[in-house]
């Protein structure tokens, strides 16, 4: 069965599924209970599941992520919501030094089966403090799983996978994708964690993207198809576990690689993909690896500036053209 849902509705459906099917789940964060969340992700959940299962916290991200960890270690399966990904920096110690670490540092004796749900990226007029795409910080942190769903269906499937995972998982959605609509397989079995996906086959060049940049890459592919450039688009989906095999197999076919993300260039996760390609796909690569990313600036709020900072389909088109020409 597949329903047509908006991305944000798919999130809501996954959370409903989680609270309904697993009695050990609890959901908390700011304004998530009665108000239903600032974007409606938790609409109706409090009414249905009550304060015992979903409740509001004070504005204390360090406090409630630590609470999520302690609860996860001792038997619950918490899903904690960080309203904007930018606010995760306030709670970074709990993420990096605590949540990511306890399983390993206890030689596996404690588990931390928790989910940190957040949404990220720019939106028109949003300032630097509300526009981060911090996935590279999380992906560099050993011990964390990192999910970046690019479609309504993945918003549903990947969040459910995160909930059943015994590892701590950061699920970073993209605010700009919330209104997008698509088919969601609401009765699909819960997927295994991980796995990149070729979302458009192509022969000439591989574009690896995630989150909002997947649709930008697909749009770019359409434009380029008209020029006779056949683009293969890989939705990386999970930065951890990282399915580089799918990337490498694609590069083996195309010989060319472009990596696209919204976060700023230097130290972005595109560097990791490019670095692996430079090591593992060396013989296959027929052109320099190109990266599409924001320049290394904090995000400006003015749309006139965002227009040249935020990578879009046109940025991908340019990078692909340079790559196929090289």
């Amino acid at each position, binding site marked *: 069965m597949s329903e047509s849902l908006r991305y944000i509705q798919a999130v809501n459906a996954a959370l409903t599924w989680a609270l309904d099917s697993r009695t050990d789940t609890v959901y908390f964060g*700011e*304004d998530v209970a*009665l*108000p239903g969340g*600032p974007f409606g992700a938790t609409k109706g959940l409090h009414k249905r599941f009550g304060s015992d299962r979903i409740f*509001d916290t*004070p*504005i*204390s991200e*360090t*406090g409630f992520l630590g609470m999520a960890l302690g609860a996860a270690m001792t038997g619950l399966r918490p899903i904690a919501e960080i309203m904007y990904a*930018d*606010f995760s920096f*306030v709670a970074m110690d709990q993420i990096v030094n605590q949540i990511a670490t306890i399983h390993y540092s206890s030689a596996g004796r404690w588990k931390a089966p928790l989910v940190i749900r957040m949404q990220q990226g720019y*939106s*028109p*007029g*949003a*300032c*630097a*403090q*509300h526009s981060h795409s911090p996935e590279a910080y999380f992906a560099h942190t050993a011990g964390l799983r990192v999910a970046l769903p690019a479609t309504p269906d993945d918003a549903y499937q990947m969040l459910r996978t995160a909930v059943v995972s015994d590892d701590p998982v950061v699920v970073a959605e993209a605010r700009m994708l919330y209104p997008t609509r698509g088919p969601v397989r609401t009765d699909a079995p819960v997927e295994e964690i991980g796995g990149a996906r070729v979302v458009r086959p192509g022969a000439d060049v591989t574009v690896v993207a995630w989150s909002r940049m997947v649709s930008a890459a697909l749009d770019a592919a359409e434009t380029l198809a008209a020029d006779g450039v056949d683009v293969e688009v890989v939705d990386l989906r999970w930065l951890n576990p990282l399915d580089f095999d799918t990337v490498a197999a694609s590069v083996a076919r195309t010989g060319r690689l472009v990596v696209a993300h919204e976060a700023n260039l230097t130290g972005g996760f595109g560097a990791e993909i490019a670095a692996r390609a430079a090591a593992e796909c060396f013989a296959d690569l027929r052109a320099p690896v190109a990266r599409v990313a924001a*320049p*290394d*600036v*904090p995000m*400006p*709020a*003015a*749309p*006139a*500036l965002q*227009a*040249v*900072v935020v990578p879009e389909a046109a940025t991908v088109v340019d990078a692909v053209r340079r790559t196929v020409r090289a």
Partner: protein
Amino acid sequence: MGLPDDYRLMARIRRFEERLAALKDAGEIPGSIHLCNGQEAIPVGASRALRDGDFVTATYRGHGWAVARGVDLAGLFAEMMGRDSALCGGRAASPYLSDPGRWFVGENSIVGAGVPIATGAALTAQRTGSGAVSVVSIGDGAMNQGNVHEALNMAAVLDLPLVLVVENNVYSEMSRISDMVRVKQLAERAPAYGVPGRVVDGNDPAAVHEAVAEAVERAREGSGPSIVEAMTERLVGHYSGDAQHYRPAGEIAAARQREPLARVRAAADAELTARLDAIDAEVAAEIEAAVTAARAVPYPDPATAKEHVYV
């Protein structure tokens, strides 16, 4: 000073925010805005206790502070319109704008984060002996952020000239403060830092002024920080577009009776009413002129997007 001046400043802020809301509805403001309608008496009363050179730090709901401290109105509008304003060139927009020229250390869109920063401004004042104070305004919900706790304690042990104004509008976004703390008043936290704490009527600029002036004097003397909790109410949603379903029926209507401008109006005789009407008209013209001036400011040149990352 006194009533008509306070009224004018409060009316200017109100009109500013109302005009901004209209501009937002008209699609002239790209980002999200957080209005302070109903809370005007706080920046107005507090600013009366300040002088040039004193630092002010606020939250994303800080337009009132910017206006009260004399930040250029056209610049504010232009900044929020995403234009190349003289404030921040459109880069900060509504929730993060600042103005060194008016010692406005700025807003902050990370809850509580301005308090440590304001503490740093207070450190400068102390170490340079400038005699300045650093005033920082936050919301009620922000009192539960670790950064506020750390900064307040540090300011206290260092005897820094810091005044923390808590604008208690009883909500943080959509959650009531009574569900978020187990104290009746947030000023009850002052003893935890060994600093004075007072609760005042935040809808009365004179009451705010009196309390902040006392705190400012203490700070200038080198006796360290204080907390002033100003009780108020939000007349509008948390952000543009907030339908406020979470507020009980009648709450906003009742707040409209108590809000600072209505209060002045209610107590005014015919003569004062006429004067206030005149002020309103002047303020409206002034705001309209600022909007017009702002609209003349160009959008930032995309070629400058990479400038100013580093000095």
